[in-house]
C-alpha cells in the first residue's frame, strides 16, 4: 500500500483531510490533572507563591515558609503553626488573610480577593492537601494506552488524541514525501537530502519505505554530529577557557568527538550519563571514560592575573552543580549557593550537598588519544610542574599574596598542555581531601564551619541517594540520576528529544520545578519517559525512531487560521511545526548545495574565515586568528573553533550560544542582520559562487535551458521543483543580471570570483551567481518544514 494511503487510513487524519472543524473552544489545559491538583494549581499555589516573596526561601519573615506543606504546618516564631489542617479558624494563615485589622492583615499592601480567601479556607478545611509536584511523581509502572498499539511500540498518537480531549480542531494530514525526507534528513543528520536520495524515496513503493529511510538516517555517521550539537549546547561546550585571555584549549574537541561517537554508537543514556559525570570512578574505566569527564572541564577557567585561584575553583564547582541540575533535573539550583531557593523546596544545604560531590574533583592530564614516544618523559616533566603549582595553590588558600604566582603558573600550564598534546580531564583527589561547608551568602571566604561539614548528598525533596559505600561519591550521584526511583532524568531527557523533533518541547525544558508548567500532554511525556527507560533501555535512537514514525511527526506544518485560534501555541500538535534551522545548519546547507561541504567527522576544531574586527575585540589582541585552508574551510559548523569571547558572527547572529551556561533551548530570532549575513558574508557568497558553478556544469548530454537549470537548482536546494510563478520570478532576476553584466563585464569578473566555469562566458556565469544567491536566501531554504 502506498505510504500516503497508509498514513490516511487513521480516522482522525481522514477528518483532517476533510477539513472539518466542529467548534472553536479554546484548548483545555487541565486534561491530565486530578481535580485536586487543578484546585491546588489554580487557586492555592498562585497565592502561596505571592506569600513566598517574604515567607519563602530567601526571606522567612516571622519564621514562616510556605514552600512546602511540612513547613506550613511547622511552628513559626510565634510558636503556632500557620496552618492547622481541617481547622481554618485555628490557622494563623487564614486568620491573617481574612482579618479586617490593617495591622494584622496579610498581605500588608493589599488584601486578597474574597474568592482567594474562600479558596484558602476551603483548602485548609479539607486538610490542606498538597499534591505532589507533577515532575517528582513516580513514572507509571505499566504502559499507558498500550492496548492501542502493537507490543513495544509507543502509543504516541493515541496519547496525543487522549490529551486533546474533546478539543475541536483536526490534525493535519501527512506531509508529502518530499517534505518528509527533507524533514527527516534535517532532524536526524542536519543535512539536506540530495536529489537522488529524494528521487529514490519517491520511487520506493515498498510498504516500509519510510521506516527504511528512518533507519538509514539513524545509521548515518552524521546522526551523531547532529545530536551531539544539541548535547554540546547543554554541556556549554567551547574551545577556550573563557574570561579575558580566553586561552584556547587544544584538547577540547576530544570531548566533542566523544559525544559524537557515543551518540553514533547509541550508547544508552544511562551509560552516557554515568561516564560523563563519573567516568574516572568507574571500576574498569578506559581512557575514553576519562575523556567523558571533560564535560566538567567546560566550566570556565579565569586565568586573569590577580584572580584568586581558590575562588575560581569554587566557581567551577558551582558551575558543575548548576549544569548537572539543569541538564538532568531541569532544576535551577544556583540561587541556593547564597540562600534557600525562593520558590522551590531546595535549601542552601541541599546545594552544598551537591557541591560536596565535586569539591574533591581535580584537574588531571594525560595522553588519552595517542601517547607520543617520549610520553613517560613528558609525564614526569608535567608531574614536576604540577607538583609545584599544586603546592602553591595549597598555600594560596591561606596566603593571598601568592595569588599572582599561582595564576602565573596556571596560565603557563595551559599552553604547555596544548603544545605537548596532553588531554585534561577530571579525577577524584585521594589525599588531602577538602571538607565542604556551607558558604555564608555564597562567599567562599566565609565557610560556616560551626554548622559542621556537609557530606555529598542529593536534595532532600528528591528521591533518596543509595550510596555504595559509607560516603557517597560522584559515581553514586551519576547512578542516582538514572536510577529507576528518579523520575526526573527520563522526563527531562525525553522532553528535550521531543523538542528536537518538533521544534517545541512538551513543557519548558529548563524548568521542572514548581514554577514549571505541567505539560498539556502529560500522559505522553510520562509514557515516553517510562518507555525510554524500560522497553527503550535508554536508547536515544530507539526513542527517536518511535517518535518519527508517529503520525504526529509526519503531519504537514502548514498553519491553518482556525487551528491557530483554537491552539495558537500548537500545544496539542494539530500540525508539525516549521522553523528556521540552527546557526550551524544555515551555513552547512549553503556549503552543501554549493558542493563545498566537507563530510569529515570529528577531529580538531577548524577556523573558517572570520572578519578581522571580531578577532580584534579579544583581550589585548590575544586572538591571532589564522583561517584554515583547504577542506577545513568547509567543515560543518559544529567543528568551528568556539572561542567564547570572539564567536564567529555567522553563528552568533543565528543564535548559536557562546558556551557560557548550559542551554537546553535555542532562540530562533529572525532579524535583518541575518539577511545581511546570508546575502553578503564571504562564506555565503562563496557558496553562491560555487552553487552557480555547480548548476552551470550540469548537462544531460544536451545543453540545458534556463528553466531546466532552475528546476535542478530548486531540487538541490529545496528538494522540490519550482512552481511556474517561481520560475518566472527567477527568470526575471536572471535576465536583469544578464543585462547588467553584459554592460559591466568587470563587475561580472568580481562577482564570480574564483569559482569561474571555463566553458561559460563570464557574463553568463555572473548572472547565475546572482540567481543562485537568491535561492540560498529563500525562507524555505533556511527552514525545516
Amino acid at each position, binding site marked *: 500500500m502506498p505510504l500516503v494511503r497508509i498514513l490516511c487510513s487513521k480516522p482522525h487524519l481522514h477528518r483532517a483531510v476533510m477539513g472539518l472543524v466542529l467548534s472553536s473552544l479554546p484548548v483545555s489545559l487541565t486534561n491530565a490533572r486530578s481535580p485536586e491538583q487543578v484546585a491546588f494549581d489554580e487557586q492555592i499555589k498562585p497565592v502561596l507563591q505571592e506569600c513566598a516573596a517574604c515567607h519563602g526561601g530567601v526571606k522567612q519573615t516571622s519564621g514562616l515558609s510556605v514552600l512546602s506543606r511540612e513547613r506550613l504546618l511547622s511552628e513559626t516564631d510565634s510558636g503556632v503553626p500557620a496552618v492547622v489542617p481541617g481547622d481554618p479558624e485555628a490557622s494563623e494563615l487564614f486568620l491573617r488573610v481574612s482579618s479586617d485589622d490593617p495591622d494584622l492583615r496579610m498581605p500588608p499592601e493589599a488584601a486578597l480577593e474574597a474568592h482567594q480567601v474562600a479558596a484558602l479556607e476551603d483548602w485548609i478545611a479539607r486538610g490542606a492537601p498538597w499534591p505532589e509536584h507533577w515532575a517528582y511523581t513516580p513514572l507509571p509502572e505499566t504502559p499507558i494506552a498500550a492496548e492501542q498499539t502493537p507490543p513495544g511500540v509507543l502509543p504516541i498518537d493515541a496519547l496525543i488524541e487522549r490529551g486533546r480531549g474533546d478539543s475541536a480542531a483536526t490534525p493535519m494530514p501527512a506531509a508529502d514525501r518530499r517534505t518528509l525526507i527533507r524533514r527527516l534528513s534535517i532532524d536526524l543528520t542536519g543535512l539536506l537530502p540530495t536529489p537522488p536520495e529524494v528521487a529514490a524515496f519517491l520511487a520506493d513503493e515498498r510498504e516500509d519505505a519510510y521506516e527504511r529511510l528512518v533507519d538509514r538516517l539513524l545509521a548515518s555517521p552524521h546522526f551523531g554530529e547532529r545530536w551531539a550539537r544539541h548535547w554540546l549546547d547543554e554541556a556549554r561546550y567551547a574551545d577556550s577557557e*573563557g*574570561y*579575558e585571555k*580566553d586561552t584556547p584549549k587544544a584538547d577540547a574537541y576530544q570531548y566533542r568527538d566523544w559525544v559524537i561517537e557515543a551518540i553514533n554508537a547509541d550508547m544508552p543514556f544511562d551509560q552516557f550519563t554515568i561516564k560523563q559525570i563519573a567516568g574516572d570512578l568507574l571500576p574498569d574505566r578506559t581512557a575514553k571514560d576519562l575523556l567523558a569527564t571533560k564535560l566538567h572541564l567546560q566550566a*570556565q577557567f*579565569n586565568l*586573569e592575573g*590577580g*584572580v584568586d585561584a581558590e575562588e575560581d575553583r569554587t566557581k567551577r564547582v558551582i558551575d558543575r552543580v548548576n549544569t548537572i541540575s539543569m541538564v538532568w533535573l531541569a532544576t535551577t539550583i544556583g*540561587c541556593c549557593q547564597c*540562600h534557600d531557593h525562593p520558590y522551590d523546596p531546595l535549601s542552601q544545604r541541599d546545594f552544598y550537598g551537591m557541591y560536596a560531590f565535586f569539591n574533591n574533583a581535580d584537574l588531571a592530564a594525560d595522553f588519552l588519544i595517542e601517547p607520543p614516544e617520549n610520553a613517560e618523559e613528558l609525564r614526569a616533566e608535567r608531574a614536576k610542574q604540577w607538583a609545584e603549582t599544586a603546592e602553591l595553590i595549597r598555600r594560596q588558600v591561606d596566603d*593571598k*599574596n601568592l*595569588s599572582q604566582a599561582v595564576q602565573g603558573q596556571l596560565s603557563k600550564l595551559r599552553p604547555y598542555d596544548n603544545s605537548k598534546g596532553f588531554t585534561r580531564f577530571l579525577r577524584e583527589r585521594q589525599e588531602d581531601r577538602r571538607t565542604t561547608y556551607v558558604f555564608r551568602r555564597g562567599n567562599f571566604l566565609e565557610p560556616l564551619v560551626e554548622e559542621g561539614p556537609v557530606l555529598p548528598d542529593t536534595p532532600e525533596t528528591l528521591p533518596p541517594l543509595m550510596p555504595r559505600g559509607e560516603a557517597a561519591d560522584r559515581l553514586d550521584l551519576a547512578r542516582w540520576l538514572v536510577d529507576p526511583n528518579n523520575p526526573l532524568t527520563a522526563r527531562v531527557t525525553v522532553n528535550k528529544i521531543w523538542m528536537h523533533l518538533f521544534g517545541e518541547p512538551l513543557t519548558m525544558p*529548563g524548568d521542572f*520545578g514548581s514554577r514549571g508548567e505541567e505539560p498539556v500532554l502529560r500522559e505522553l511525556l510520562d509514557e515516553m519517559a517510562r518507555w525510554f527507560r524500560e522497553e527503550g533501555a535508554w536508547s536515544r535512537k530507539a526513542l527517536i525512531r518511535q517518535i518519527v514514525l508517529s503520525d504526529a511527526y509526519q503531519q504537514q506544518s*502548514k*498553519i491553518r487560521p482556525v487551528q*491557530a485560534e483554537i491552539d495558537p501555541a500548537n500545544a496539542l500538535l494539530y500540525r508539525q511545526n516549521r*522553523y528556521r534551522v540552527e546557526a550551524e545548519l544555515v551555513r552547512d546547507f549553503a556549503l552543501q548545495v554549493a558542493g563545498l561541504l566537507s563530510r569529515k567527522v570529528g577531529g580538531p576544531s577548524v577556523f573558517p574565515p572570520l*572578519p578581522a*574586527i*571580531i578577532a580584534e*575585540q579579544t*583581550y*589585548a589582541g*590575544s*586572538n591571532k586568528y589564522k583561517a584554515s585552508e583547504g577542506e577545513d574551510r568547509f567543515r560543518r559548523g559544529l567543528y568551528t573553533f568556539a572561542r*567564547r*569571547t570572539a564567536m564567529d558572527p555567522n553563528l*552568533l547572529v*543565528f*543564535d548559536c550560544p557562546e558556551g*557560557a*551556561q548550559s542551554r537546553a533551548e535555542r*532562540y530562533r530570532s*529572525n*532579524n*535583518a*542582520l*541575518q539577511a*545581511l549575513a546570508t*546575502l*553578503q558574508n*564571504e562564506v555565503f557568497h562563496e557558496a553562491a559562487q560555487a552553487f552557480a558553478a555547480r548548476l552551470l556544469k550540469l548537462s544531460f548530454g544536451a545543453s540545458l535551458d534556463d528553466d531546466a537549470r532552475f528546476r535542478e537548482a530548486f531540487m538541490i536546494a529545496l528538494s522540490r521543483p519550482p*512552481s511556474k510563478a*517561481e520560475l518566472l*520570478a*527567477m527568470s526575471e532576476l536572471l535576465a*536583469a543580471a544578464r543585462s547588467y553584466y553584459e554592460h*559591466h563585464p*568587470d563587475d561580472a569578473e568580481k*562577482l564570480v570570483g574564483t569559482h569561474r566555469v571555463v566553458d561559460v562566458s563570464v557574463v553568463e556565469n*555572473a548572472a547565475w551567481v*546572482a540567481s543562485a*544567491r537568491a535561492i540560498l*536566501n*529563500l*525562507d524555505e531554504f533556511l527552514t525545516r*518544514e
Partner: protein
Amino acid sequence: MGNIEQTRRSFLTTAASGLGGAALSSLLLGDSALGQPLAGHPLAPKSPHFAPRAKSCIFFFMAGAPSQLDLFDYKPELSKLDGQKMPESMTEGVRFAFIQKDTATLMAPRRRFRQFGESGMWFSDLLPNVAQHADDLCMIRSMQTDQFNHHPGQLMMQCGQAQFGLPSTGSWLSYGLGTENQNMPSYVVLTSGRGSSGGATLWSSGYLSSVHAGVLLRNQGPPILNLANPPGLPRELQRQAIDTINDINASHYEHMHDPEIASRIENYELAFRMQAAAPELTDLRNESAATLARYGVDRAEPEKKNRVGPGDHYRSFATNCLLARRMVERGVRFVNIIFASWDHHSDLDEGLAYNTGMVDQPIAALIDDLKGRGLLDETLVVWGGEFGRTPLGENRPGDRGVTGRDHHPSAFSMFMAGGGVRGGTTYGETDEIGWNVVDKPVHVNDFQATLLHLFGIDHKRLTYRHQGADMRLTNITRESHVIEDLLA
C-alpha cells in the same frame, strides 16, 4: 494574537502588491507590555512603565578601571600620607589582585585638583574640557561593585552579574523599549584600541533573542559587518534580488501562513534600507570643519603611547564620539563606546595622560554638541569603568618603584550627564584616603536600576523568564534601589 495575525496578513498582501517597505514596517509593530513575552516584532517600539526622561544612552565604558583618585575623588589627606603604611584595621579581610599587603604603602596622586562650575565639582587637571561641563554632570563618588577582576567586573557593570551568558544593559533596553529607528540596529557598540577583557561578551544578548545583541560598528570602511554587497553586485541588482526573494517568500506565505515568513520578508527590506542608512551614518563629509575640529577628529596621535597598542586611537575615539551623536540623532537606543586600556598597575601618570588626552576633548565636545542640538535632555551620557583603583601603590615583587594602583572594588567614581540626571551633583563620599565609601554607597545594581528608571523602566518589572526565574538586569537576589537624588 488574532490582531497580529491580521496585521501580518494585511502586511503581506500589501507587500505582495509592492508597497514600499518603510510604510510596511509600521504595520508590523504590535504593542506589547513590558516584561511580557513579545508577541509582535521584537524590536517594535514599546511603552515604558512610566514617563521616561531619557530616550538614548551613550555609555563610555572605560574598561580596565580608571583611577578615580587621580581624576575625580580629591583626597588631600592621601597626599599627606604618601609613602606611609595603611592601618592594618583597614586592610583586614581586604583582597588585592597584585598588591603585597605587608609592604604596601599609600600613594599620593600627582595631579593638581580644583573645583569647577557653580557646583564646585572637583576634577584633576587631566580632564580640563570635561570639567567645563561640571554643572551638567552628576558625579557619583561612592560606586561599589562585588568584583575585583576585570572580566567579572566588566560583566557586572554591563550585565548586572559576574556571569557569562547574561544580557547586557543595551540588550535589556532593546528588549524593553524596542527601537525607534527601523533602519539601524537598536544597540550599537564602538571600540577603540585593544580588545577589552570581556570582549564580545560585554554586548551579548545572553538568554534574550540575538535581535537584542549589540551590533559592533566599525568607524572605517563599511560600518556594519556584511553591509557591503559582494564585489561586483550593484545596488540595483540587490534590489532585484530582494524583490525576487520576497516574491517567492510571499507566495510561500500564502501557502504556509507562518508569520515568521512575513518577518523574514520585512527583514530583507530592513537589511536593504540599512545598507543605505548605515554608510550615511558614518559618512562625516556633511559635518562642518568646525565640528570635526571641536571633536578633535583630526588630532594627531601623541608620540608617547602607553599600553594601548598600535593605531590611531585619538582619531578613532573622537570619531566614535561624533558617530554616537549621529546615532542618537537617528534614534539608536544604546551606544556603547569601549576603550579598554585603563588598567594602570604601573606607569599610571603616563598612561592616564595619554588616555585622558584622548577622551577629554571629544567627550566635552559631544556633551556640548548634544546640548546645542537640544538632545542632551533626552540623551543619557555615562562614563566609568568596572571598578576603581587603590590608594595604595603597587609593590609587586620585582617591580621597581611605585608607579601604579591595584584594583579597587569598594569605592570608585562614575559620572553621568543629560537624560534626566541632576547636573552639578556630587553624590556620595569616600573616607579621607578614598578607601571606603562613608556616605551614600551606590552599588552597581543600584546604578543600573537608576539608569533603567531614567528610561521609564521599573527594574523589577522588566523581566524575562529564564530557567524558571524571572531574570532582570539587576540581580534578582539583591534588593536594588533607584538613587532618587541623582534625578533632576
